[in-house]
């Protein structure tokens, strides 16, 4: 997988996937393209990395999937469940809290 992202990126793919699937159902390839687009390619995921995350989220009930034949290929479309929305809200709040804390710490360090 691409190693262009730092180690503290752990958990970010999950947050991004939940956020994107909150708007619409998508399949893996679409999701990777969408992540690149919405993050202005700041986050470059190894493309295979999303499938373990998608399967895990589906296994714990945050996502549901359905097969759909499109252009001669059977796509697996993922969409968010109610549990997934709750998880997204929780992760979003966690992310904002951490982001705020780190930003404050960085500002403090600069001003010190």
């Amino acid at each position, binding site marked *: 997988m691409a190693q262009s992202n730092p180690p503290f990126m752990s958990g970010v793919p999950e947050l991004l996937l939940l956020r994107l699937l909150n708007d619409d159902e998508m399949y*893996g390839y679409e999701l990777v393209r969408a992540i690149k687009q919405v993050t202005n390619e700041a986050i470059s995921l190894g493309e295979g990395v999303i499938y*373990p995350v998608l399967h895990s989220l589906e296994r714990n009930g945050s996502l549901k999937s359905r097969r759909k034949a499109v252009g001669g290929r059977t796509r697996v479309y993922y969409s968010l469940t109610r549990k997934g929305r709750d998880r997204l809200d929780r992760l979003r709040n966690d992310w904002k809290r951490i982001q705020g804390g780190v930003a404050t710490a960085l500002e403090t360090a600069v001003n010190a």
Partner: protein
Amino acid sequence: MREPDFNSLAAALRKNGVAGRHAHRAVNELRDHYDDLVDAAVDEGASSRKARRLAAKQLGSMDEFVAQMAACRELKTWSFRYPHLAVVVYPLACLAILPAAPILAGIAHREALVRWGTSLLAAGLVTAAMLLVMQLSIILG
């Protein structure tokens, strides 16, 4: 980067304890993803060979993919999640199934059993008929 070997990928996932349905579906999704990447590269003007190479690079290492799938405990079979329990349950299940094994084997091979049974019956009838003819020839002759 080499082209991904999707045929051996499912086996590698199963070997690392990933449940069959997740292993097969993940491989199919990854294969479709790879095909999409190749198509996109070809559309952008790359040769078929270069497109496949680029797609493989974008998809990433299959070994790491296997490691990531295997790291998700919830995607593993129960015997990999609870290995100590499996050590107890599997032998007990085998012992429980043992008495039923001949019946299950018979059901599984019922067509052969019917053939054998029919052949034995036919052979018995032929033998009995021959013995009857011999007996009659002794009595009447």
